[in-house]
């Protein structure tokens, strides 16, 4: 008895000692009666359900906590005003000329930041400069915020009516063509993403948290005070803060490719597509695919595809993955409501 006990490993020890064979043994059980599944009990194409909690932070203009499995992200959006007189090389936006540039991008009106060093996982030490992963994540989120054109610059402009009384007609279209109305300031949105706990798939959950927080964001009514030359905000009791208008609902979906061969493979080996990988799976997979889709207009619209680290996923798998991403979109939309 004693010998068999010392030779038998508990599954937790097996996972620690040799994680790759452990995951492989789970996906490819030697006993055919055991169903194939991942170490976390999920099917290869099964994602963890989202849960969303809005308006958790009292001092932010909008916030959300999004949890997917053991990955929990809190995102807060805070608006601050930026006077156009303080922008170097400022050019007033023209209604007819859209091609002149993107105000959101040119004046850096969206400032996302990702914080991983919160003790959310053992491999991120607190009190060190941002890791490569944190920097990569914030760049990807930044470029997705811009390339998806999720927000419009119109929402962030603070107008001043030259002739009329201040603070009127700023959500209405009227007066746009007239020359008296001018942009005096912009709202800059500071979008801070904090990982509360980290168990794989950071990009999807961080993006989901940003979307949920932006949908929750209500900016107070701001106007230009001519006498004091300041931007002032009305009290929420005086005038209801207005939400941002958003274009569609982009949702990210990530999968990792697990290959049976641990070392560099030659020829084709067996592989599994693991949707929504956890931390163990991420550490064992080289190739990842991320797709951001938007199904709001019926047809699946793709906003980002990012695939790197391997040669398994070709065009056929990519088409298949678009359907997986579409189901993930439906899951997130129902979690938001």
């Amino acid at each position, binding site marked *: 008895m004693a010998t068999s006990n010392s030779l038998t490993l508990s599954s937790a020890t097996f996972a620690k000692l040799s994680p790759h064979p452990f995951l492989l043994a789970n996906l490819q059980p030697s006993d055919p009666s055991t169903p194939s599944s991942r170490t976390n009990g999920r099917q290869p194409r099964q994602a963890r359900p989202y849960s969303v909690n809005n308006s958790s932070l009292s001092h932010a203009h909008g916030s959300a906590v999004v949890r997917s499995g053991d990955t929990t992200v809190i995102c807060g959006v805070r608006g601050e005003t930026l006077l156009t007189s303080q922008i170097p090389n400022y050019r007033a936006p023209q209604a007819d000329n859209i091609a002149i540039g993107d105000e959101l991008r040119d004046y850096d009106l969206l400032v996302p930041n990702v914080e991983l060093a919160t003790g959310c996982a053992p491999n991120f030490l607190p009190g060190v400069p941002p890791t490569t992963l944190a920097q990569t994540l914030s760049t990807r989120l930044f470029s997705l915020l811009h390339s*998806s054109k999720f927000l419009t610059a119109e929402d962030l402009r603070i107008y001043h009516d030259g002739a009329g009384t201040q603070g009127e007609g700023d959500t209405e279209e009227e007066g746009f063509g007239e020359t008296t109305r001018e942009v005096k300031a912009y709202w800059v949105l500071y979008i801070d993403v904090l990982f509360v706990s980290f168990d794989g798939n950071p990009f999807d959950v961080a993006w989901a948290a940003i979307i949920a927080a932006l949908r929750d964001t209500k900016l107070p009514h701001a106007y230009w005070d001519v006498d004091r030359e300041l931007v002032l905000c009305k009290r929420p009791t005086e005038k209801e803060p207005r939400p941002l208008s958003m274009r569609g609902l982009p949702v990210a979906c990530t999968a990792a490719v697990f290959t049976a061969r641990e070392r560099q493979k030659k020829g084709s080996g067996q592989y599994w597509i693991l949707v929504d990988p956890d931390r163990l799976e991420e550490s064992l997979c080289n190739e990842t695919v991320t797709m951001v889709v938007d199904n709001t207009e019926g047809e699946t619209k793709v*906003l980002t*595809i990012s695939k790197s680290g391997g040669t398994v996923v070709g*065009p056929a798998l990519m088409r298949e993955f678009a359907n997986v991403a579409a189901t993930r979109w439906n899951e997130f939309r129902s979690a938001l409501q």
Partner: protein
Amino acid sequence: MTVNSEPEALLSHLQNADGSATFSFSGYTVVGAVNGPIEVQRRDELPEEAAVDVIVRPAAGVGGTRERHLESLIQSTLRQIILVDNFPRTLIQIILQVTTTPENEYVNAKVAQATSNLPILPALLQTAVLSLLSAALPLTATLTSTSLAVVADGQSKKVVLNPSPREIETSQSFHVFSFTSHDELILAESEGSFTVKEWDEAFSVAQRQCCPPTNTDDGDTLMDDGSLPGANLKQFIRSTLEGKIASDLHWK
């Protein structure tokens, strides 16, 4: 502004690096240097394979988050083609210095973070591969990489190969594809707004561009390059290296 439509490369021109290359194509010029296998820091050491370290330096300013993103993409791609198993507990370091980027004459671009990350990626990858070849590191395959934009042209849409910054800015979607010399897709980055069908079209254009039919094993038979819309990068890598080897062995 003149943009050279033909790729140009210079191999092994840095004396102190194990391998080096300068590559310029469609307005980008990148200098690459490779050192390896060299000693690795203890905390980065991998017991069974070589650590690959990629450093990207921008043309102006110091590297920021955007360079970290490019580095992580290039690192995960190159790790697949370098035979890292051959050099356990060592480091292969690849340094890519951008020297020229095409200017967008329509906007006064800021230095930091103003534009998309992706347009420079093909030039960086191509330089890295040429530097690795110059360093004579064993590879499983080489890479060819291309970028393209889907531009609205009236009602229809057309695919523009190697677009200029202005074309990228006005495009509906922008794609970067990399293929190994075994014609497998190794990297795909796309942004903008597109359908899966459009991505498929872009993919097949890129595949035609990067993986031309290979009947070129016997050197100089493929002379009818006129059918290809852009430069044949696979052929370019081959002929550049052939030229380099011929000049190196000239003394014999």
